[in-house]
């Protein structure tokens, strides 16, 4: 059974239908990709799956539980975490604080008014472990805004991982990255795939086809094709539109 299963999701903004009865399923332990042209509805789909938008109709099941319309904070607590196409960090905080605040053990203490944070070895160690995973060990106390762009992308994934998710949604993780930073990110995702279910939207086809187990092609708010990267390479639309092949 798929870990996340969305069925007949419909979302419109005024007269504009952005998702039209779209159905997607993401298997546990796999890297799933979503691709499609600009304006296809990919990010809206992510927003609906992660609680930013409530679908107009349709069901979303996470591990068998209907989560359609639940808030982002509720979904984060259930184990759904995400990164954003436009970087979303706590820019005025140190790197380690970005991660600490997302830890579930920090969250359980969120309403304590007289508790300590920065002298808690358990919290600091847990945050350091996450930073180590994303390649930011030793940079704990740097202001996050001062990190290079690629490291900020890695930190954003670190913040998402700190919530100890079961599913990690990555919205265009290579956006704005150079070749080396993209290679580093691919390496990071390869390391993470053994531990997390990953769903990502990506425009870098090479990146996506190298990493994904399955890919769904979204266009005009609908899934027009899906399958393994190898199967999709033979798809005429994918060849023509995404892989830049003539035919």
């Amino acid at each position, binding site marked *: 059974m798929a870990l996340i299963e969305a069925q007949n999701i419909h979302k419109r903004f005024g007269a504009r239908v952005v998702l039209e009865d779209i159905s997607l399923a993401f298997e546990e332990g796999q890297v799933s990709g979503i691709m499609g042209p600009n304006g296809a509805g990919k990010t809206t789909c992510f927003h609906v799956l*992660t609680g*930013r938008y409530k679908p107009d109709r349709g069901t979303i099941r996470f591990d068998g539980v209907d989560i359609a319309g639940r*808030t*982002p*904070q509720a979904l*984060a*607590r259930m184990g759904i*975490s*995400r990164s*954003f196409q436009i970087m*979303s*960090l*706590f*820019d*005025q*905080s*140190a790197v380690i*604080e970005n991660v*600490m*605040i*997302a830890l*579930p053990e*920090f*969250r359980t*203490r*969120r*309403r*304590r*008014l*007289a*508790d*300590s*944070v*920065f*002298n808690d070895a358990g919290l600091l160690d847990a945050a350091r472990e996450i930073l180590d995973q994303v390649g930011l060990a030793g*940079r704990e*106390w*740097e*202001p996050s805004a*001062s990190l290079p762009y690629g490291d900020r992308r890695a930190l954003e994934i670190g*913040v998402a991982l*700190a*919530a100890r998710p079961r599913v990690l949604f990555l919205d265009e993780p290579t956006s704005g990255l150079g070749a080396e930073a993209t290679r580093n990110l691919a390496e990071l995702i390869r390391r993470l795939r053994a531990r997390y279910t990953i769903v990502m939207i990506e425009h870098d086809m090479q990146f996506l086809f190298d990493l994904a187990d399955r890919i769904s092609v979204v266009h005009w708010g609908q899934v027009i094709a899906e399958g393994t990267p190898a199967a999709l390479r033979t798809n005429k639309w994918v060849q023509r539109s995404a892989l830049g092949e003539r035919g």
Partner: protein
Amino acid sequence: MITLSDIPPRAGAWLTPQIVVFTAILATAPLWLGTIGLYQYLGIEIAIWMIYALGFNLLFGYGGLHSFGHGAYLGIGAYAFGLFQHHVGVSLWGGLLAAVFAAGIAGALVGAAVSHRRGIYFALLTNAYGQVFWFSAIKLHWLTGGEDGLLNIPRPTLDLGFARVDLNDNMALYFFVATALVVSVVLLWRIANSPFGRVLQAVRQNESRTAFVGYDVWWFKWAAFVISTLFAGFAGGLFAMAQESAYPDIMSLHQSGLIVMMVLVGGGLVGFWGPVYGVVLYFVARDVLGTLTETWLLWYGLMFMAVVMFRPEGLAGALHVSARRLPFRAAPRRASVGPA
């Protein structure tokens, strides 16, 4: 511009060297206030406004929630204290509890209505609710005394069990208010550096991200609003006692704007102590400039404009930057945000 989060994240200590120095300054103030040409009652006023400003800054500086109607809660506290003395009984603790409770209830109700909003909508809503309270205070003559306000509010005796202190003496009242200020400082310092305070700062920086890592942003905004109104109510109760009256003017838009100016000029967006500097600057400007010219508020307004234009981080920020530049404090940037 540097921000609150540029100040090092700290482990939670109940007492810090700054709090000890601040307490020492408060404790010795009666000895030197007169020698610099000031007077005892000014110390009382400054201490009360510091409580108000520090509580306000939890919302304004830490939460990034710009309330422009906070004078309402100072006023509600003042009226509640006066009404308690007039209609229930002359009691210091009863009156102060009533002040805190009334302001907290009003804050909880208004906070529930405004915490769904942010930015300019939050600011305008707080302003609108502030105006409602101010207008009500003027019109509910039977309760509040209308534009004249509540007069002849007694200063109850402080009963310590082993001794009774007459707070009609300004020196005694000063030490009572100064003690209340130190307790408020310790509480607010702990709150600002607690997990709650750190999440509040996260809300200020990135509300959406805070929600997506599992926090109920509305609740944090509401709680910060309520806590700040509790302190405003407490300050209002003390103010009514000090002034022996409560009147609508302290709830006016003008007064709500003053606290914003004090916090900004002092550097509340940058440091915990910013509101303290801001309150001192305002009252010194009022009492020192005020003896020189009737247009002192114009000069204070010009100073506010200059700060906003050239030093938006305020006095606390300027001091923070200067301290960093000291040769013996010079350290790499990464160390400057390490835990203290």
